Structure formats: structure tokens, C-alpha cells
């Protein structure tokens, strides 16, 4: 069993949880993910590691209530436990001290997995400019954390309630327009956001890394459900990724595959509500 040590609702439907998993915390690196199961009948869901604390032996997860499993997870409290927690999975981000200027883009809840990557890049001595995107000011997360490890933070909200009005690509364009020399972009967020970022950086020739979170079952290479087309090759996000060269990723297929279980997901959510496991 894996105990929930801390829980906070960051904004409506978005939760921060620290899970006690000392062995995972000891090995976790920026860019990796875990797979968890809430209870004995639960499904295995992958979540990207938002932070890790070796001393406390905890892994931080940030998740948005979308389906049945995240709803069930959100209903648990500090001191409760979940049955399974496996990781760290996937390849860590490639980070070194000679990356130059990196723009780290997080859209929505994607800010959470970008955070440890941006921090590691910053600690390695690179210049980190962070772009944080959200629909509206109230659901922006991790602002203080991102400010603490970035040389500069730009915020973009769809409705203009905070920072630049527009998308993360609007903010990125501003950086380009002011003549910022960008060596790499790392973007994590919804498929459509990552696609837009890649479409913007491709003509500029800026190396762009994206982190994918497709549907998967085991997370160790066994099911092949997380396969993505990257250039001419079929890759498994769980063992080959989750990070890939965004300019080579077939985002349309990725987004289409993300909808494969949509009908079932709705049914599962309804079931969880009916039997009172949700909130």
C-alpha cells in the first residue's frame, strides 16, 4: 500500500498529492512517470512525476479529474492509501549544462511535469524561460514554483485574465519577435497545444521536445497501446519516451488514439458516481 502524505486542491478539479514511495523517489528523474492503481478493481493509470523528495520519500503528482480513476483518486484524503504504485518509468529528460537558452512551455496541467525538467535545466546552468498557459487565471498552477527556477516567466491566458491574452504560442512568438535566441523548446500539455508549438518552431528550426501521455496499460513496453508514429518509426511512449522530437510526432494520430475509449470512459465515470466512490 502507498500512503497519501499530502493533498491539496490547487484549483477546481486539479489536485496535488504527495505519495509515499521512498524507493521510487530515490530513483526518479525529471521527465519520468509512474503508473498507479487506486484500488483492487482499479485501472492502471500513468501520471507524470511533478516532483520528488528523496528525504521524505515522496513523489508529487498533479492531476486533473477527467475520468473514473482520477475522480476516485481525488476522493481520497491524507492518510489514505492506494494499492499499487510503480515507477519510475520511461527515459529521463536529456539535460546537460550546454543547452543554452531553453524555453519550457507548460499548458494547463502540463505545467506540473515541466517543472522538474525546467528546474534540472536551470540547475545545470542553462537559461530557462518558462511559458505557462491556462484557460483563465484561476486555474493556473505552480506559478511560484516556476518563478523560483526560471530566469523569466511569461504567462498566457486564453481570456486575458492574467499575462498575455492568447495561447502559449502567442507568448512564444513574442520571444521570437524580440530577438531571443532560442536553442531548445520543451513543451508539455494537451496534444493540440504541443502540435501548435511544433508547428510554430518547425519553420524556425528550433529543436522541440514534447512529452507524450498516451493511453497505456502496463507502462513497461508490454501492451503497445502507447504506440506513436515518430517519423518513419513506430515508438512506444512508455519505454522509448515519453519525450520525443516534436517535429516528427504524428499528433493527429496521437489525438485520435486518445479518443479510443471515450465512450467507455464516460460509462466508467458514471459508474464511480453511482456507487459513491467519487466525490
Amino acid at each position, binding site marked *: 500500500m502507498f500512503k497519501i502524505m499530502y493533498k491539496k486542491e490547487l484549483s477546481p478539479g486539479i489536485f496535488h498529492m504527495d505519495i509515499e514511495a521512498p524507493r521510487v523517489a530515490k*530513483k526518479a528523474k525529471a521527465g519520468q512517470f509512474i503508473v498507479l492503481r487506486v484500488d483492487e478493481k482499479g485501472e492502471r493509470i500513468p501520471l507524470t512525476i511533478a516532483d520528488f523528495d528523496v528525504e521524505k520519500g515522496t513523489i508529487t503528482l498533479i492531476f486533473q479529474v477527467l475520468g473514473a480513476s482520477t475522480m476516485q483518486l481525488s476522493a481520497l484524503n491524507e492518510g489514505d492509501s492506494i494499492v499499487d504504485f510503480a515507477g519510475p518509468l520511461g527515459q529521463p529528460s536529456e539535460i546537460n549544462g550546454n543547452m543554452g537558452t531553453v524555453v519550457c512551455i507548460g499548458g494547463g496541467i502540463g505545467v506540473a511535469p515541466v517543472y522538474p525538467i525546467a528546474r534540472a535545466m536551470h540547475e545545470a546552468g542553462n537559461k530557462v524561460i518558462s511559458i505557462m498557459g491556462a484557460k483563465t487565471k484561476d486555474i493556473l498552477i505552480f506559478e511560484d514554483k516556476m518563478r523560483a527556477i526560471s530566469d523569466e516567466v511569461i504567462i498566457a491566458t486564453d481570456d486575458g485574465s492574467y499575462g498575455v491574452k492568447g495561447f502559449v504560442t502567442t507568448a512564444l512568438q513574442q520571444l521570437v519577435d524580440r530577438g531571443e535566441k532560442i536553442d531548445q523548446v520543451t513543451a508539455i500539455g494537451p496534444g493540440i497545444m504541443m502540435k501548435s508549438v511544433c508547428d510554430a518552431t518547425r519553420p524556425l528550426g528550433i529543436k522541440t521536445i514534447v512529452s507524450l501521455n498516451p493511453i497505456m*496499460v502496463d507502462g513497461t513496453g508490454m501492451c503497445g497501446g502507447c504506440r506513436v508514429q515518430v517519423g518513419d518509426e513506430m515508438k512506444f511512449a512508455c*519505454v522509448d519516451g515519453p519525450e520525443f522530437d516534436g517535429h516528427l510526432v504524428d499528433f493527429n494520430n496521437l489525438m485520435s488514439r486518445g479518443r479510443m475509449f471515450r465512450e467507455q470512459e464516460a*460509462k466508467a465515470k458514471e459508474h464511480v458516481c453511482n456507487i459513491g466512490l467519487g466525490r
Partner: protein
Amino acid sequence: MALVLEKHKMPEQDPQVRAHNFQEVALGYDEETAVAEANRCLGCKNPQCRPGCPVGIDIPAFIGKIKERDFDSAISIIKESSSLPAVCGRVCPQENQCEKNCVLTHKGESVAIGRLERFVADYQLDKNEEVKPIEFAPDAQKVAIIGAGPSGLTCAGDLARKGYKVTIFEALHVAGGVLSYGIPEFRLPKDKIVKREIDNLQKMGVTIEVNSIAGRLFTVDELMDEMGFDAVFVGTGAGLPHFMNIPGESLNGVYSSNEFLTRCNLMKAYDFPNHATPIVMGKKVAVVGGGNVAMDAARTSLRLGADKVYIVYRRSEAELPARAEEVHHAKEEGIDFKLLNNPVEIIGDENGWVKSLKCIRMELGEPDASGRRRPVAIEGSEFELDVDTVIMAIGNGPNPIVASTTPGMDTNKRGNIIADEETGATTKEGVFAGGDIVTGAATVILAMGAGKKAAAAIDEYLKSKK
């Protein structure tokens, strides 16, 4: 006594009924049938069955005990050689192993060795006897086993009985490997058989740590240098599904057999939404491949509500790699075998879902490297099979996670770990390997045989080190 030329029939669920439920198909012999079947055995002076068994069970001896109705002794004899008899009695390809060489095959059918093994194994499981824990010496040496599948479980059982403290590290949340995620409930019941065999190993004193991904949570070097293990056995299986590299494999409605079977068996998607893992099951299904896994996927599709299920295989019936019994059962249940056909493209609709499977007809040419006649495409013979679900059951490659994090342990160009056939010794001292990670995808019993040989070799190695 007159010679009975045919095996006593295995009682089975009616094909029309069982095609819609997940209960076990074969129901097992009762006592009288088992004794009568045992009495068919001639007790050859020079038994040919035993050399056909990959773990070397003393077959004439255990059958002799069944004749005497001494079922306890019969199972004890099997357990000297096999840790998982209730599993092997169900899933071994006996017709290619022990039963193939039975002297009765000259005149009729062999003794039903597999069915008899299953009978005594179930007899013992049903007795629910206390398993005696092993008393380990305080200075017992420690062995780590990576992967709780057939090879790892066998290796663990044998080593524990020799007095070694064994810990199995399993990546998934349940032990059993392919016995849990791959082989369906209707062929190998999970709670009734697999879980109990594994529970018995644990009661005996084997430790199993689930959710433990070797190569990520710890490396093989750390197991030996920091975590105090004196030897390591790697039995990580064939875990990386192959695809055909034809257009359309990323459409919705396409599964690898691993994903499809894992959702259904391990995650119990057949009980959705009580169990939270979903499965999308169409009405018309094509399963590509001709092995046991393909049969399992096809028969599972029927049970999940498909109306029409095809097996699409590029060679002919004679080359089907699946056990004869599985093919027979699949046909009885109404699976449609599209033999000598090879998929060339999966065609999708405007929403990204499978609409049909485009195949080309094949004919058999000259024998290839495997000795089987090579299938050759008949030009211009393409046609579309009207399906909404495609399951690729064309095999698995080795999972790279452990090998890539273990310097000094060499792999071949396919990524399989190089290990001595007799001992399982790898190129790294103190590290042994066996099962599908070494041989490529094979059978449960061959993996168990490899686990057994490795256990003997690890025993030798650790004695020499002490």
C-alpha cells in the same frame, strides 16, 4: 485387459454455451475416469514419454500411483520435478512432448498424460493442505529473481527448496507473468489455479515483491552490490509486442494481442465497469497469427460479444503453431480460419477507426529456414475482409529494460540475453537467465525447464562461492 485405443474424453462445456462465458472450457477427469485412463498405461520398461518432458517428470511412476489410487504419492512424484503442475496439466503442448512418444501412439492415441497431471494437481489443490514453510538457515544465501512468470516461479521454488532465500521482483501488480496477463481465464483459471499455486510458493517461504521494475527501481548491479543478493536470475519474458509494419496499425480498433489479453485477463475488462479498465470490442474481429496467443485472442473476442471472428494466417492448417487442442476448441466455438492469407493494410474510416482488413492470398512454396514451406503472395489476389477490430498476435520481442541497464550481460542482435543452454549462465558472473527473454517467445513448460536448469546451476555456483 483389452487395449483401449482412445483417450478417455475430457468433459467440456458445450461449445455454444462456453463461447459466451469465461468459465473453464475443460472440466477435468473425475476419479474413476482418471484411474481408468491411468490403466491404459502399459508401464513400459523403457518409457519414451519421460524424455519428452522438458522438466523430466517421472511420468510412469506418477501414473502407476494413480492406478493404485494413491493420488497423494502421484502428485508428490510430479512435484519433485515441477512447481506448477495444475498449470502444466492445462497449458502444456503434450502432443508434441511426452504424449508424442507414448508407445500407444503406434496403434491409437497416447495415454492422456496431461489430463492425468491436471487431475492429481487439482486433487491436491482442492485438499487445501497446509504448506509447510521452509526453515532457512540464518546464513542462507540470497537469490533475486526478476520476473514472476513461469521460469522465475520455477527457479524460485527449486532454490527455496534447496534452502536459499529467494525474492522475486515483479513489474506488474500481480505475479504470474503470462499465466496472469496472457492465458485467458477459460483456459487457466486465475483465482482457482494460478493464484493458489503462487500462494503456495509464498507460504513455502518465497518472497514476491510486485510493482518492482528491475532496471528502473534498481539495477542488477545494485541487487548484488548493495541489496545483498548472491546471485540473480533474469526471467523477464518476451514482453514487447511485434506489429507487421503495414499501414493502418495505429487506427482505433487495432490491438496487440498483449494489450487485448492484458485488458481482459489481468485487468478483468470483461467485468467493466465493476473493474475500471475498459475494452472496446467490435462485432467483426480479425486476429492475425496462428499461435496459441492468436487462438486465445480469437476465443476471448467471442466471449466479449463479437459476432464473427476470423483467424488470418499466412500459412496453411498444417503449419499452425498453436496446440491442436486450441485449434480444435476454436473451430468448435465457430472461429472462422482464413488460412493462406496475409494482411497488407488496415483500412480506416473517416473517424480513424478500423473499417476493413486488406489481405492477399498466399500459396506455399519451398521450405524456409524454419523447415516450413514458405508462403508466397499470389499477385493480384488482394481482397478486403469486413472487420471493425484487428488484433495482432504475431509474436513478441524481448523487453530491453533489464538488459540495457546491466553492463556485462550480453544480448544477441535480436536483444535476447545470451545464456548457456544447460545452465542459464549469462556473460556476467552470478547472473543467470532463462525463458522467453533468452529463447524468444516459446511455451510455459520450456520456460519452466529453463528456470529449473538455472536453479540447479545457481545452486552449484553458490556452493562453489561459499
